[in-house]
């Protein structure tokens, strides 16, 4: 799940300065769960923009705004409203915003900040456990990621800032290395903790990343 948060409305309004006709896009997946770009938030945005004197030419919510072909298709389906717009306000992650970029020549505006790849702990409570480093180390650390869950991303044990099993940066946050130690000890695999892990390869997938699946063979 890509976690996003809403930008302040004043900031959104500033982005739309000089554009009277706006088309609003929301996403039925992550942004709906994050309550940043679901049906309710898109309807709310439409009403607020209209109250500010904007003409909302269209407001749609569909699954996978980040799917570029899908977004282009949705734009074709809403041709009239799309053509009437001066600009597009996209209420989902940065991937979605840039999928809209591919579907129009006009200006495209983000309504959200994209913050992390998150787990849903319970409804409305998201936590970052993976930072997409491209070189998974979960096998070594009892399926607890120090790259993400240790503030400094340390691979070889806790820093001096661990306090009663909490992180020095935030007493509400667990020290990843206390979690890892406890987990490995429970499993009788502390030897993994004793192993020295050398400098990490940060370039396994060079930015900007791209993965293309191999074409399946005939009948495959």
């Amino acid at each position: 799940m890509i976690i996003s948060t809403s930008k302040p409305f004043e900031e959104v309004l500033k982005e739309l300065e000089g554009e009277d006709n706006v088309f609003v896009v929301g996403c039925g997946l992550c942004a709906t769960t994050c309550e940043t770009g679901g049906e309710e938030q898109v309807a709310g945005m439409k009403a607020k923009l209209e109250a500010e004197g904007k003409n909302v030419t269209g407001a749609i919510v569909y699954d996978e705004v980040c799917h570029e072909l899908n977004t282009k298709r949705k734009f074709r389906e809403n041709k009239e409203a799309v053509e009437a717009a001066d600009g597009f306000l996209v209420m989902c992650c940065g991937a979605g915003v840039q999928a809209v970029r591919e579907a129009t020549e006009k200006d495209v505006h983000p309504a959200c900040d994209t913050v992390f790849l998150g787990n849903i702990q319970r409804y409305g409570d998201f936590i970052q456990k993976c930072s997409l480093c491209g070189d998974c180390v979960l096998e070594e650390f009892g399926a607890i990621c120090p790259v993400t869950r240790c503030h400094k991303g340390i691979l070889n044990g806790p820093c001096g800032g661990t306090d009663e099993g909490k992180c020095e940066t935030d007493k509400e946050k667990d020290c990843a290395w206390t979690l890892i130690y406890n987990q490995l000890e429970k499993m009788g695999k502390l030897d993994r903790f004793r192993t020295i892990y050398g400098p990490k390869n940060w370039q396994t997938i060079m930015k900007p990343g791209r993965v293309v699946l191999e074409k399946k063979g005939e009948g495959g």
Partner: protein
Amino acid sequence: MTLLIDKHLKPSLQEVMEKGTFLVTGEIGPPKGTDIDEMIGHIDLLKDLVHGMNITDNQSSVMRYPSLATALIIKEKGGEPNLQVTCRDRNRMAIEADLLFAYTRGIRSVLCLTGDSIPVGDHPDSKGVFDIESVQLLQLISGMEEGKDTGGNELEGAVEFYKGAIVTPEADPIEPQMIKFEKKIEAGAQFFQTQAVYDMDNFKRFMERARKIDDKVKICAGLVLLTSPGAIKYMNNNVPGVFIPEDLAKEMTDAPKEERLKTGIRIMARQIRQCIDEKLCDGVHIMAIGKEGVVPQILDEAGVDITKL
């Protein structure tokens, strides 16, 4: 041409330690700006009273005059620098380049730290690098001593440093900390300076654990000067890995206001004496944090003259 800083006017920390001499080091905190006169004053004051001086590296994530530049000033002044290197502000390439430079300018010991986290400092919006961390930094130096950088490339001229690291005796929980201590030794650490210790009984317990892991590695107790009851409260509540026991807190609180610094000096002098007399560890690292001017008094009160240790 031989520059003044190419001459070693003092024995290296390694030479002192390997002779079995009790090591006494101080610390220089560079200023935030170009007014370095006061810092130079501290260097002049301390250079002959201690075996060496640590130079902090953007301590507490606060941008300051660089540690490497200060280490060179200490050399110029005839002192012995112990260069602190953190991984917060530089990636492995920048650190390697700095180490090449440091080695060619006569810096012989390096203290390897991961570094404080960014949000605690004065540039809270900046990006923490943490490309590597303390254990990997020790490995990096060990590799450079073998003539290779972390890219696996041959160096035209290797480095050689006395490699130091940090350990936190008050860490909670302590077990992971002790495993990391062991890993640091395996990665090349030859000496340790501890995070601030106040509870000497706990320090003794820590030393027993540490000696069981390795009885040769050199360990110096880190001592931070207490200056006020407020500072004690702050440290107990806000500085992870630091615990000031009640009896010391009481000693400070009971002292009249004008006697508090004196009391802090007395406490540290007593701790230094205890470390030496009870042979608790291999040395002490004195952190006076802003009160470097009283270090001669501390040493005097502890009866420590490094020429007689």
